[in-house]
C-alpha cells in the first residue's frame, strides 16, 4: 500500500506537496471557518427538519383519514334492535306448514301477508304509528325466524327486529325531538337493545340503511380480483421473463419496453373505455354481427379490464426482479448442464419471486381500489343479491362506497364509513400478505 493513500492530518507544513509548495494547515478557530462549520451543521439540521416535517405531514393526513373513518364508521357496525311482541295465531295468516320446508317458503310467507302482519303487530305493541319504529325490512327477520322454526307460528313471541333509521339515529342522540321522545319511551319499556351488526358482513345492498350489508360488494371484489390475478399474473410474469431472458436487444424490444412503461401510466378510465369496446361492444366482421362477448356488470368483465390495467405494472416489477438475480446463478446453472428453460424455472424465477409477488400485490391493491373503469362497464349498479359467479351482475367495494355516499337517506353516512373500513382492512390484509410472502421467499447472497 502506497503512502499517499493515507490521509494527511492538517497539523502543519512538514513536507512539500507534489508541486513543491507548502500547504498551510487549516485553522479551525478563525471566524470564517467557524461560520462555515455552523452553516454545514445548519444545513444538516434543516434537512432533518424538512424530512421529519414531510413524514409528519403524511402521517397526519393518514391519521385524520383513519380517525374520521373509525369515528364515523364504528357506528355502522352496530344496530338498534326493537323487541317486537308478535302473536302469530291472532294475525290471521294462512300458511301451509308443509311449504315452509320447501324453496317456495319465501313466496308462501310473502303471499300470506307476513309483511302487513308484522306492521300490524308493531302498531298493536307500540300504538298507532308503531310500524314506523321498525325497519321496513323487519319482516324478513321474522320470515327467517319462521323458516328456522315453524312451530313459533303457534304461539306468541318476542322477536328482536331492526329499528328504523329514525329510531337508530335518535338512539345515537342525532335526529328530531319526536324520535328522541319515542326512543325514551321504548327504552323505558326495555324494548331497545344495541348489538354488533353481524348482518352488515353477510348482507348485500339495500335501499334501507339498517338492512344493508357489505358482503355483496366484498364478494364482487373477490371475484373480480380473482379474474384479474389469473389473467394479469401469468401473462405479466411470462412477458417479463421472455423480455428479460430470451428477447434479443434491438429496436423492437426497446419499443415494447417504452410502450409498457407508457401503459403503466395511462389513466384507468381509458382502460374502462377499452374494456367497454372490446368485451361489451359489438362489431361487424365479414358481414356478420358479433354481439358483445360478455355480459355487462359481470365480475368477469371487470376483472379482465383491471387485468389490462395492472399488467404493465406487473411486467415492470417482474422485469426488475428478474434483472436483480445475479448472473452468476445463471452461469452456474448453465455450467452444470441446465437448459435455458431449466435455468429460468429452477433458479431465476424462484429467486425473483419475492420481487414479482410484491409488484403483483401492489398492482392488485391498485385494482382493488379502482372505480373509474368499472363505472363504464356497468358495475355501478344496485344489486340486492351477492353475485353467484363470475358472469353474474356484481359490484365492488369502492363502487359500493361511491353509491352509498350518494344515497338520500342519512343512515347511509355511517354505512359509507363502515364500508371504507372494510376496504382498508382488505387492503391491509393484501399488503400484509405481500410482506409475508416477501419474507418467506427472500434469499440473501
Amino acid at each position: 500500500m502506497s503512502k499517499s493513500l493515507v490521509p494527511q492530518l492538517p497539523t502543519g507544513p512538514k513536507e512539500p506537496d507534489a508541486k513543491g509548495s507548502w500547504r498551510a494547515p487549516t485553522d479551525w478557530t478563525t471566524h470564517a471557518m467557524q461560520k462555515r462549520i455552523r452553516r454545514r451543521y445548519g444545513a444538516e439540521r434543516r434537512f432533518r427538519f424538512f424530512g421529519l416535517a414531510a413524514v409528519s405531514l403524511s402521517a397526519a393526513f393518514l391519521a385524520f383519514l383513519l380517525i374520521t373513518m373509525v369515528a364515523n364508521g364504528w357506528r355502522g357496525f352496530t344496530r338498534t334492535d326493537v323487541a317486537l311482541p308478535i302473536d302469530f295465531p291472532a294475525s290471521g295468516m294462512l300458511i301451509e306448514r308443509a311449504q315452509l320446508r320447501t324453496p317456495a317458503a319465501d313466496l308462501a310467507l310473502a303471499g300470506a301477508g307476513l309483511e302487513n302482519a308484522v306492521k300490524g303487530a308493531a302498531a298493536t305493541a307500540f300504538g298507532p304509528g308503531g310500524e314506523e319504529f321498525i325497519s321496513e325490512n323487519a319482516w324478513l327477520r321474522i320470515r327467517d325466524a319462521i323458516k328456522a322454526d315453524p312451530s313459533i307460528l303457534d304461539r306468541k313471541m318476542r322477536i328482536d327486529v331492526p329499528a328504523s333509521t329514525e329510531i337508530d339515529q335518535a338512539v345515537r342522540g342525532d335526529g328530531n325531538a319526536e324520535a328522541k321522545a319515542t326512543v325514551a319511551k321504548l327504552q323505558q319499556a326495555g324494548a331497545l337493545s344495541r348489538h354488533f351488526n353481524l348482518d352488515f358482513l353477510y348482507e348485500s345492498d339495500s335501499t334501507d340503511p339498517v338492512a344493508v350489508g357489505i358482503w355483496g360488494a366484498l364478494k364482487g371484489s373477490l371475484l373480480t380480483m380473482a379474474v384479474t390475478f389469473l389473467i394479469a399474473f401469468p401473462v405479466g410474469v411470462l412477458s417479463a421473463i421472455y423480455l428479460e431472458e430470451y428477447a434479443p436487444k434491438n429496436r423492437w424490444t426497446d419499443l415494447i419496453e417504452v410502450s409498457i412503461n407508457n401503459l403503466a401510466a395511462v389513466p384507468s378510465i381509458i382502460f374502462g373505455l377499452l374494456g367497454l369496446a372490446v368485451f361489451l361492444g359489438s362489431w361487424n366482421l365479414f358481414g356478420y354481427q358479433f354481439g358483445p362477448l360478455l355480459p355487462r356488470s359481470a365480475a368477469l368483465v371487470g376483472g379482465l379490464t383491471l387485468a389490462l390495467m395492472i399488467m404493465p405494472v406487473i411486467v415492470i416489477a417482474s422485469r426488475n426482479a428478474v434483472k436483480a438475480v445475479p448472473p452468476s446463478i445463471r452461469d452456474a446453472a448453465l455450467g452444470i448442464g441446465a437448459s435455458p428453460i431449466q435455468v429460468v424455472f429452477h433458479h431465476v424465477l424462484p429467486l425473483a419471486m419475492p420481487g414479482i409477488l410484491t409488484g403483483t400485490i401492489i398492482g392488485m391493491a391498485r385494482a382493488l381500489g379502482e372505480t373509474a373503469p368499472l363505472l363504464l362497464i356497468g358495475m355501478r349498479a344496485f344489486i340486492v343479491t351477492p353475485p353467484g359467479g363470475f358472469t353474474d351482475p356484481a359490484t365492488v367495494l369502492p363502487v359500493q362506497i361511491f353509491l352509498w355516499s350518494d344515497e338520500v337517506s342519512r343512515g347511509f353516512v355511517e354505512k359509507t364509513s363502515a364500508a371504507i373500513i372494510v376496504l382498508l382492512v382488505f387492503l391491509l390484509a393484501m399488503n400484509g400478505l405481500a410482506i409475508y410472502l416477501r419474507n418467506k421467499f427472500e434469499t440473501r447472497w
Partner: protein
Amino acid sequence: MLRRTTRGIAGVRDIFGRLGLIAAAAFTLAGCDSNTAREIRVVGSSTVYPFTTAVAETFVNQGGGRRAPVVESIGTGAGLKRFCEGVGWEFPDIANASRRIKKSEYQLCQANGVGEIMEVQIGVDGVALAEANNGPRLRLSKQDVYLALAANPLGKPNAARTWRDVNPSLPAIPIQVMGPPSTSGTRDALVELVMEPGCAAADPQANALKAAKDAAPYDTRCKRIRDDGPYIDKGENDNLIVQGLAANPNALGVFGYSYLEENIDRLHGVPIEGVTPTYATIADGTYPGARPLFLYVKKRHLRAVPGLADFLTLYTTMWNPKGKLTQRGLIAAPDALRAKSAQIVAQRAALDPAGLH
C-alpha cells in the same frame, strides 16, 4: 441455497398448475350462459333510482327465487341513449327518466329497431331550490332565477354578481347556486320549468325566438346556464350539495324534492313565485318546479325477460299516496293519472310518438 431453490421450483410449478386449472374453469363458466334467462336491467335517472331500487328490493324479497334486478344510475339522457341502442339481452329493459323522452331519442329507438315502448308515469318530483336554515330567506320569481343563472340573459353575457343586481328588492348577497351537471335530468327540468318561463317573462323577444326555425339563438338566450362561477356544478352527487349548503348559508342548492324532505331539519325550500316546495304544492302542481317521473319499457322485452311484467305490476302497487315509494320521497301522481298509468301497464299500451317534441 440449493434446498431453497428446489423448494421454490416445486412451489412455482404448483402455483402455475393450479392457476391453469382455475383459469380453465373460469372460462368454461364464462362461455356458457350469456343468452339464457337474464335479470331485469334498468338504467337512467339518479332521481328515479331510489324508487326503482326500492321496488327491485321488494321484488326480490317477495321470494320465488327471482334474479335480482340490476339498476344503474347514469342520468336520464345517458340512460335513454343506452335504452335506445337496441333490443336483445345486452340492452336494458327499462329506462328511468326524470323528464319525458324527446322526439330525437324516440327516433333513435326506432332506428335501432327497439319497436314499441311503454311510457309509465310513476309519480311527480319537484326541482327544489333550497337554502340552509340560517340562510337569507330569499323569495324568488322565475324571472329572478333566469336573470341570475342564464349565460346570456336578454342576449348579453350575464354580469349579475349579487341577487340585488337581478332584482333591487333582493339582498346584496353573492349569487351562489349549487346544482347538477348538464347530463342530469334535474338540470333539464330546472331549465324547462323555471328558466324558460322566466326567460319568456323577462325577454319580450323570447316567444318570437322560440317560434323561429333556428333554435340556436333561443337556446343560448333562454336555456344555457352560465359557467362563469355563480352556478356551481357539484356533479351527480346530491349529498355534496346538501353538505355544501350546510357549510355556506348564503348559497342555494338545486336537487330533487326527496333530498329536501330527508334534510328538512337542516334546509328549507326557497319559494318560487310565492310557492314553497312541499309535498302538497308539488302534488297539485302549484309549485313551478313540479315535473313527472317516467319509466320507459321495451314491449318486446316483456315476454323475453322473466318477471319484467310482474316487476311493473309491483311498481303500480307501490306508488300510492301511502305506499312505500312515497315514504322514500316520491310524490304520488293524482288519482286519475295513477289509474291511467296502471292501465298502461295492465294493457301494455304503447307510447304514441305524436305528442313528443
